[in-house]
């Protein structure tokens, strides 16, 4: 856990947050400070309604965490609390897993991803363009989001490598990455079809039609397959081995199933094109947005492909979203498709991610399915469900404390915890600014270095 590598920075997460270190403003602040300081001793959260997502809700529960992991949970009285645990009374609150956003542009959008020089740029990496101190990251924390798939845009057929990031309070994107067992950074590759990447009238190298879009993608994957085969054939012959191509290497990862395609697609025929390309090349793909998914739910189900849905306040805004409807989640759920939601922040503000599930329930989706779609299903979409997405012993201690039911318009997110660390606390005025907005709520968070406790210090010393 990167957070413990740099405990000094953990405490100085935000200069405006200085009040956290003063005598308490409230009990919750003490808790926040404790969890920041004292990750070595367990914490027991007592009395809340717990929605573990994995398993039935617990009306009055206990959640025990230690060293950034969930140790135990269950009804009050059924869980043995370690003798050295700090007790936190959260009676009347609701606890559920930290939200997982499977499609987001927080961190300085639109400043990252592929440019307009060519339609296919798998070599670009979104991590090179993310500003971890952008206010959107703190807003997302206040919206209960603990893990996000931060993606480049949809203006290219292949717009680059995405990053599955933990929204840790560290101010550095390097410390927000999730490292896979093989040492790679967790992430997918962003692709798109439909009108966003059809822009030949302004950019000659780009496709001018849907069929050309698909044709260019086929060419790219064929080239990647040939590159892979040549590498294998000439593995021992430096002279015949092809020169390294970082873009093709990425597509080879895709062909090998080691990197999942996160595919922007709205219209039903574009969705079917993605499924066709998947059949031809065999890559793993998640459909993103899927505005007309309700028209082709059976085909999506038959392909065994997961969907990450955007939930908008009204249909339209662009031609391809004309037939967007709140029923999509319900229709796909009934067809047996794995459904997640996303914010597409800045399209939908991360602070309203819970609302996506509520509106999907309005459209006919089951309550349980909608809550899964915010958490464990998105964890599956990001292939991280062994460590996040539900409250289970052994998983990361990523959870949120709510004032009430997660699908109610009247509920507020009060605290967000990532790996046991409190990254958002509504009783802290500096955090509340990002939750509610106000002067400065869109400004990047000030420098974060451990030796400078205030912005003024920083300005005077640099």
């Amino acid at each position: 856990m990167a957070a413990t590598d740099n405990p000094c920075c953990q405490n100085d997460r935000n200069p405006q947050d200085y009040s956290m270190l003063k005598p308490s403003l409230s009990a919750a602040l003490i808790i926040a400070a404790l969890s920041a300081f004292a990750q070595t001793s367990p914490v027991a959260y007592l009395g809340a309604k717990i929605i573990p997502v994995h398993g039935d809700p617990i009306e009055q529960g206990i959640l025990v965490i230690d060293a950034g992991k969930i140790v135990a949970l269950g009804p009050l009285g059924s869980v043995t609390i370690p003798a050295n645990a700090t007790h936190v009374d959260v009676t009347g609150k609701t606890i559920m897993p930290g939200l997982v956003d499977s499609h987001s542009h927080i961190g300085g959008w639109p400043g990252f991803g592929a440019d307009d020089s060519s339609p296919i740029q798998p070599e670009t990496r979104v991590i090179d363009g993310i500003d971890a101190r952008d206010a959107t990251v703190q807003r997302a924390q206040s919206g209960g989001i603990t893990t996000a798939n931060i993606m480049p845009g949809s203006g290219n057929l292949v717009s680059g490598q995405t990053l599955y990031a933990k929204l840790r309070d560290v101010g550095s994107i390097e410390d927000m990455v999730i490292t896979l067992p093989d040492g790679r950074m967790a992430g997918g590759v962003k692709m798109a079809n439909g009108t966003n990447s059809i822009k030949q009238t302004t950019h000659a190298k780009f496709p001018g039609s849907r069929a050309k879009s698909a044709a260019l993608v086929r060419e790219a994957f064929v080239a990647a397959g040939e590159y892979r085969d040549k590498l294998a054939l000439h593995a021992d012959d430096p002279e015949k081995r092809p020169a390294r191509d970082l873009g093709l290497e990425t597509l080879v990862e895709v062909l090998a199933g080691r990197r999942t395609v996160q595919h922007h697609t709205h219209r039903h025929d574009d969705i079917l094109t993605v499924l066709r390309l998947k059949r031809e090349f065999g890559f793993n793909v998640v459909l993103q947005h899927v505005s007309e998914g309700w028209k082709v739910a059976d085909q999506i189900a038959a392909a065994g492909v997961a969907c990450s849905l955007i939930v908008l306040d009204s249909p339209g805004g662009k031609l391809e979203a004309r037939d967007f409807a709140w029923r999509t989640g319900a229709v796909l759920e009934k067809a047996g498709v794995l459904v997640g939601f996303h914010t597409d922040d800045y399209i939908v503000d991360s602070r309203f991610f819970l609302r996506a599930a509520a509106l999907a329930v309005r459209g006919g989706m089951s309550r349980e399915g909608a809550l899964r779609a915010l958490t464990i299903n998105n964890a599956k979409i990001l292939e991280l469900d062994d460590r996040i997405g539900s409250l289970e012993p052994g998983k990361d201690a990523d959870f949120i404390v709510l004032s009430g039911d997660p699908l109610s318009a009247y509920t507020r997110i009060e605290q967000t915890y990532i790996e046991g660390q409190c990254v958002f606390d509504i009783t802290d005025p500096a955090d509340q600014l990002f939750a509610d907005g106000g002067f400065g709520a869109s400004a990047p968070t000030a420098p974060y270095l451990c030796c400078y406790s205030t912005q003024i210090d920083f300005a005077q010393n640099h």
Partner: protein
Amino acid sequence: MNPFICFLALAALASSTLSAQTLVVRAGMLHTMAGPPIEDAVVIIANGKIVRLGPAASTATPRTGRVLEAAVVIPGLIDAHSVLGLSGQLNQPHDQDQLDRSAPLQADLRAIDAYNAKEPLVEFSRSLGITTINTGHAPRALISGTTMVAKLHARTADQDVIHPQRMITVTLGQFGIPSDASSTGKSPGTRPKSLAMLRADLVKAQEYAAKFLLEDKTKHPARNFHLEALGRGIDGSQPLLVTAQRAIDILGALRLAREFDLSIILDGCAEAHLALDEIKASGFPVILHPTMVRAAGEMENISMTTAAKLQAHGIPFAIQGGYESYAPKTRNVLFEAGVLVARGLTWDQALASITKSPAQILGLSDRIGTIEPGKDADLALYNGDPFEYTTHCLGTVIDGQLYPGEDDHI
């Protein structure tokens, strides 16, 4: 499916000539917004107007007439500032009539000449409970045009309009300054230039009006509809709706109003929380930005607690759907007001901001905004708390005419 929903759908099919018919609306809870809520209430509607209402047990109910039932009934919602019907859902050139950029000051543009009553978002908005909108040109030019007030019958502009020239849409700040201002030379390039151009045209409008008072008709100037509209802005019959997001622009609007003795309506007001005392002192109402609008650029400092602060300061305000250049193409005031309940407003205050309060700001509180005898029969019917995300709108009644709820749209 709820059988009642089926019933509503059937009723709507036959509703084209229903407005003269008697409707009996039974409500588990009736929020009239003119008094305390009434449990087990009934509203009697005839000829498009509310005839009487009260507890079902003690209110005379006609034997004939169509009966509707809903758990919660509230006044039809009012969107105090929208571009609905001008800015269509497809976002293609053919359905975008909210902005003409041939000149920076065009108070002669009339919303009614662009309002598409058949735009799908009109029906969509109605299906969630909106019955009246103040709609017009987008806040993206110094004077982008005017607004009209329409009922969401979705017939034609001429049939649905209830006030054809309600306000003049003025935009201060960056939204009123086109990105190519310096190259076109016609538009303002700075905030001071925006105000200078407004002052110049307001002076012209004063002089134009004065010349028309001359007895010698040969000395009357040629008709100029732009200046005539501004004249109505000055005399208050068609007030300026001044979109001012930054505090600097709010103060600019108040300065202009003082100089010309204008009665204006402040709009947007992303930074109203920085100018509360000045707004309060002006006495002008605020049509506040949508609560969930994207916090970026000119609106980076929006706060979801501003509405509560306006309320605490006694500043009259309404919540708007506003203008969106991209998805979501329209925001719904039902949701924009609902989230305010968890951010400092009471339930009643939030509902007032999209019913009673906008009716007052639009100068139409004699007809709409509350459920009272003699007022237009505009109601929204829900199967639960209207602000809860998982509640459904079962139908709306506009001028006594029943329209289907959201089930066809979700």
